[in-house]
């Protein structure tokens, strides 16, 4: 139970941090914010790596994991890169 409470605590606090930090992003940057935060949601790749790389898991689970790693990586790399492309275009004067 403590385990769950610990994880929940982390989740709720992270939501608060997210709200605080992201409220400050100006509308000009909303598209890069979306694609950049989108790349961060690819963090699920960590779970995918553990699943796909775990030698003891059944092959079906590992196949799903492998597929998940590929998909999540498209999300991560595509997201960060496209955000970088956009942000390089924003300039002052």
């Amino acid at each position: 139970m403590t385990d769950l409470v610990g994880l929940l605590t982390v989740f709720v606090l992270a939501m608060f941090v997210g709200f605080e930090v992201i409220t400050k992003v100006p509308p000009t940057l909303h598209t890069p914010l979306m694609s950049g935060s989108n790349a961060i949601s690819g963090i699920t790749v960590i779970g995918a790596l553990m699943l796909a790389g775990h030698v003891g898991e059944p092959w079906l689970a590992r196949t799903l994991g492998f597929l998940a790693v590929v998909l999540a990586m498209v999300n991560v790399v595509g997201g960060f890169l496209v955000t970088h492309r956009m942000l390089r275009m924003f300039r002052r004067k």
Partner: protein
Amino acid sequence: MTRDLLYLLAASLFILGLRMMSHPRTAARGNLVGALGMAVAIGATLLSGGLDVGLLVLALVIGSALGVVAALKVKMTAMPEMVGLLNGFGGLASVLVAGGEGASGGVAGAATAAGGFIGSVTFFGSFVAFGKLAEFLAVKWKLKPWQAAVKFGFSGAAAAGAVAFAVGGELLAAVGGLAIAGLLLLRRETFPGMTAVKALVLALALVAAVTAARGGSGYWTLVAVAGVLGVLLTWSIGGADMPVVIALLNSYSGLAAAATGFVIGNTVLIIGGALVGASGIILTGIMCRAMNRSLWNVVLGASGGAAAGPKADEVYRTVKATSADEVAMLLEAARRVVIVPGYGMAVAQAQHAVRDLANLVEREFGAEVVYAIHPVAGRMPGHMNVLLAEADVPYGKLKELDEINSAMESTDVCIVVGANDVVNPLARTDPSSPIAGMPIVDADRARTCVVVKRSLGPGFAGIPNPLFAKERTLMLFKDAREAFVEIAAAVKAR
């Protein structure tokens, strides 16, 4: 231990990176900091031991290569589609991880069900959003070969999945897969009783989620039913409501990752997912406020329609057409010019032509040119800003509603390009209008308003726009890019 500390470092880098997003000057570095965080998290996982690293590196390389190609090839005007698609990939990855772990009962079981549910809604909803933005779903016209390939390929895959489930004895999952395959083939945005069907599927999905959470079995049934829900919820949403949906799906993809974090008890997934969830929720709220509509209203697809309000013929009796020459003359006398871009500018790829004219007017006539950015102009949050940044417009020239409206009365020329509903004064004056109360750019309060538009066709809300017929409004009936090129030529000739 070391691994968990590295995860903490990664999570900190995510937060730091997002914080640096709060200013255009530091945003590019912030993005790199976020990417570094991701690299740390992946590296820590690979080095933690006990994993088949060779296989993992192969998967990482394949995914990265696909990501690089996609990110480098995509055009700036296609950014909404790209973000929609990437959201979907993240969602599907979460579905697969939660399913592969196969946890049952207790906390892990509940988290697995949540991950499958949210992830599946994200994936199928994102695919529909992508398909609608790329104009191959819910349309009647003939598709290009690649569009047909994606549409029928996806439907075929869903049907094949359904058959596999049927063979495996999971009949409910099979029905769900078939429903998805069939829905995607529809050629229209609505069908009779759609709201009731949505409510029914929502209820079914919740039942499936509870069942899966309790027993551990039925996970793929849950995924299939949630997938039907994802398709239905996004199906009828188009046009001006798209920014809300893209933001919402963004939020879901984060929450799905967080749920997966609960399944495997991993804090970096929970933190990363929560940050993205929060970001999406904030953007969704901003978009809804900018349209003066509730989230339910958008998601349940109750858009106003064309019923209420005045008739187009009557409103447009006094419309005056103008020419590029006349606009150039107006600009010569102007001291302050405001440009209001909308989705039409993106469609016509007119951002460079618009920038050229703005620079020319500033240089030749010494006027001040700024841009009015409505939060829901375009198909995703901040869409116009990205297009204008691509055209090298400095971000200091992009103004928000309040700032632009407070100076509108001292604006000599306001040029509306490809925007309609966001400059419709009925939002202020007609309480029965579908856009009543929506904050708008007060283009009608400028000394002169020029509207560049191909025809008098209505915007997404389906209502006529009295701005076009105002005494001080001139219509330039042309494609946006052509119009700006011609005005620029006329300016040079003066």
